[in-house]
């Protein structure tokens, strides 16, 4: 058996919406944008997914707590997963947001997960400005 690894290193520009979003994460804030109907999209987008219209960039801080809309338990995380022990991937609608953010919930056990549960952001001490700067924990555990 032989193992091969191919790596393609890219540097991406983040643009006028994801750049500030990740800057916010680095600084400990979750930002969304308001579309023309007044709905708050989190994560923020440059275009409204419903209409394709450009978003007038109007950032709104949301969270840090929210509600789990749906989830899936990851029993055996790989080294590329955000946590090194079993966790849930969940769609989390943060307080103040109208759409859900896909993120990890460190619940300890699948038994503690349920749709509708409250979760809150847990920030890393050292943040680099990307999506893994935070994860979520059940609110009662925070």
């Amino acid at each position: 058996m032989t193992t091969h690894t191919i790596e393609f290193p890219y540097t991406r520009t983040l643009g006028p919406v994801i750049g500030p979003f990740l800057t916010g994460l680095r600084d400990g804030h979750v930002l969304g944008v308001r579309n023309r109907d007044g709905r708050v999209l989190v994560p923020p987008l440059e275009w409204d997914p419903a209409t394709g219209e450009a978003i007038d960039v109007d950032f709104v801080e949301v969270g840090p707590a929210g509600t789990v809309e749906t989830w899936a338990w990851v029993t055996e995380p790989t080294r590329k997963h955000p946590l090194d022990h079993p966790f849930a991937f969940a769609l989390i609608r943060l307080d103040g947001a109208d759409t859900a953010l896909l993120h990890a919930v460190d619940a300890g056990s699948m038994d503690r997960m349920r749709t509708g549960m409250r979760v809150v952001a847990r920030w890393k001490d050292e943040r680099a400005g990307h999506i893994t700067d935070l994860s979520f924990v059940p609110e009662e555990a925070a």
Partner: protein
Amino acid sequence: MTPAATEPDDDNSVKMMDYFMQLEYREPLCPVVRRYADQLLEGRLIGHQCPSCGLVYLPPRGYCPICVVETTDADETVLSDRGTVTNYTVVTPVQYYGQHETEPFVRASVTLDGGNATMNLQDLVDVPVDEVRVGMRVAAVWKPKGERSVADISNRSWGSAEGCIDGWRPTGEPDAPAEQFLGKATF
């Protein structure tokens, strides 16, 4: 894809992100390459000699692509670990991602004594880059038996002995005439 650390811009906002796309895959060695790898660990270079045209393939491929005939264990031959530099390239490394070399180095083709079998992309040791020449006589520098590894041998690394041979060292013998190697295709 795994996002790596982002780079703050001079106004201290995050504008760029390093992004690594990484593909990792494992493959079993085909039987003839498996046998080649096992023999490397024993300090032997083996090839298959085509029963039709007589060309020797190292590592064995299990076929001769010229004659389109199968080769088997019956066609196996043990090859010399001494040979002649029949071609070489001086590589001046550019520091792209993943390049660990910093100084110019040589990658040579070594045609083994006794036949056509040629190992390509071989490292030469104990010889300055500007002294390398076609016709130079060399001998394999085997790693000690316990330190050999065939982890990097793949089904496509034809001619490779990386992990078992450190490189090829000049023997000091008189050069073989370069003319006999020039303008020839090797296999």
